[in-house]
């Protein structure tokens, strides 16, 4: 893993978040650990239901009832956020930790003006005059590439396109210069060209400002060009975690391998698409032991017990697997760089 020698902005250790529903306990996040350093981008990859969004909400303290963090630590710049008071959360959110949501249509309040929603984000954390806050908002809009910011400030959300709205959400996230930004599938709802632009800008911003970024997505291609590290999640656990180039070029966990293999551009024309057989199990009904067992081409009897986190020698990453691919196998099979 890339460390530039500094203390991590965020260090998550053995995080466990469950939803206590009427039909049982849903272990959405089941012993997850990772860290992000200043200026670094971590890609958190997984299908829907893998627990990636819940991980993001857990870090922000935005879990809805009946969800609760039941174990582990979230160290933000040395401070454990688990069990923090409501007041502390309010101080942190929006000023030191910010989040960008997936759906740009609904993240902005339709009946309030853009400037209202930006100014309140500033004034919730600092005593500044409205005029100054407005100026900062204006600058932030410029920073994310929105033209004629003065007019835009007076507008309402529905007068913006999806891409613009998402830029505004990003601008809001940047307003108070947070140390950590969690972006939950921010470009999924946008078209490809806008997506590329935003990705590029995000990368630039992080490098310039030293902000740590967690980018949650199900789309591997996004991660490839953007992230420094990648953590692959499956059914509430991280199954593979390492530097992005390492993991994507030679994935060791069968699931990661399957994910990369199933990307259409990876396949030769005319040959059948690779697919991971089966479906993601319901979190209420997980197979015993390794959750991927039922779909894994390499599963064996030992997989009936939950694999611990291990670091195969020389691989430069952590995996959770009893029967990982061999490094040599992986290199031969997936030759060629993953196109960026």
């Amino acid at each position, binding site marked *: 893993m890339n460390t530039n020698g500094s203390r991590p902005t965020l260090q998550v250790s053995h995080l466990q978040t469950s939803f206590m529903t009427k039909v049982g306990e849903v272990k959405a996040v089941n012993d997850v650990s990772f860290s992000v350093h200043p200026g670094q981008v971590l890609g958190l990859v997984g299908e829907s239901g893998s627990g990636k969004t819940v991980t993001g909400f857990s870090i*922000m303290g*935005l879990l809805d009832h009946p969800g609760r963090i039941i174990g582990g630590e979230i160290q933000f710049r040395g401070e454990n956020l688990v069990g923090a008071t409501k007041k502390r*959360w*309010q*101080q*942190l*959110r*929006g*000023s030191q930790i*910010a*989040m960008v*949501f997936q*759906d740009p249509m*609904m*993240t*902005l*309040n*339709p*009946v*309030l003006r853009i400037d209202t929603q930006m100014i*309140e*984000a500033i004034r*919730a*954390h600092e005593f500044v005059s409205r005029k100054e806050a407005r100026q900062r908002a204006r600058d932030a809009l410029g920073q994310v590439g929105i033209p004629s910011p003065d007019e835009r400030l007076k507008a*309402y959300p*529905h*007068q913006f396109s999806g891409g613009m709205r998402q830029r505004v*959400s990003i601008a*809001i996230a940047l307003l108070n210069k947070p140390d950590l930004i969690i972006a939950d599938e921010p470009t999924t709802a946008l078209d490809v060209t806008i997506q590329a632009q935003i990705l590029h800008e995000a990368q630039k911003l992080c490098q310039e400002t030293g902000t740590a970024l967690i980018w949650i997505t199900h789309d591997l291609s996004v991660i490839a060009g953007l992230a420094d590290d990648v953590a692959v999640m499956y059914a509430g656990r991280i199954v593979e975690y390492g530097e992005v180039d390492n993991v994507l070029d030679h994935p060791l966990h069968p699931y990661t391998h399957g994910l990369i293999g199933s990307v259409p551009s990876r396949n030769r024309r005319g040959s059948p698409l690779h697919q991971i057989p089966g479906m993601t199990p319901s979190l209420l009904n997980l197979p015993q032991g390794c959750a991927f067992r039922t779909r894994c081409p390499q599963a064996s009897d030992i997989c009936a017990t939950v694999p611990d986190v291990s670091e195969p020698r020389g691989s430069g990453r952590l995996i959770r697997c009893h029967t990982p691919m061999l490094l040599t196998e992986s290199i031969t099979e997936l030759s060629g760089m993953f196109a960026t």
Partner: protein
Amino acid sequence: MTVFIIRRLMQAGVVVVLMSFIVFSGVFLVGDPVDILISDEADEEDRERAIAGLGLDKPFHIQYLVFLRNASQGNLGDSFIFEEPALLLILERMPATFELALFALLLAVVVGIPLGMLAGLRPNSVTSKSIMTGSILGFSLPTFWVGIMMMMLFAVILGWLPSTGRGPTTTFLGMEVSFTSWKGISHLLMPAINLSLFKLALVIRLTRAGTREVIHQDYIKFAQAKGISSSRIVLVHLLKNILIPVVTVLGLEFGGLVAFSVVTETVFAWPGMGKLLIDSIGMLDRPVIVAYLMIIVFLFVVINLVVDIVYSILDPRVRLREMKA
């Protein structure tokens, strides 16, 4: 925006004319027009004169046109009892009715919205459940009976409040109002509360439903993610979204309040238009009855129009949609 207003005005005009036709036909075709417009006490000669003078011997459509012409000039006939123009009589009493209706509306909103929001924010609490049960009672109970019970309890048995009538009035913006003195308020209190109960129940239920819906929206979560305080989230983000449907309904309901004040005014002997109507019915003062019906229909249509306009101002999405249309 102006196009929108003009269009609505035209629609309103159609409704008013239609209603006038219905009222007129109803009164003249079903009842005996002679009886309706001429006092029972007139003797034969006066009757003949009146019939000729009022054109009652002319065919229906001519009578209707005459009625319309007179109505547009503000002449809706003279009261038998008071021997004054009916329109004037009603207008004199309008401020009293409006005062009552406005206070009832105010009460419903000021008490109802916070209660509804409370019930919506903590849906499974004891507070919420009792508020909701209260709201069922609030509109199941017939208003007039609740009024009688209130009167019995607070006026007759406890003697805290006066049972009937309106308090001393002062002139405000050219109208007589009574809420300017404590005595006036003591007279206003029971009727206003009585009239407001039904609307209060409505507001509570609407607000609660709205709150439950809005609170789960992404933008509320996003506001939390920005670190906005809960009080601001509730008072600004939540409230403004809830207000729109609530205000619309309430605006429409104001007309209903004015109409329904007939009952409360009768129970509490409040000297408004409604009481005048009931008294007139009892005294067979028909021109006043007709005038009241016309005016209240007209009022209703105007209120609907105003509400539509206000709604479009409040909800920016509607304003833009209408402008494009």
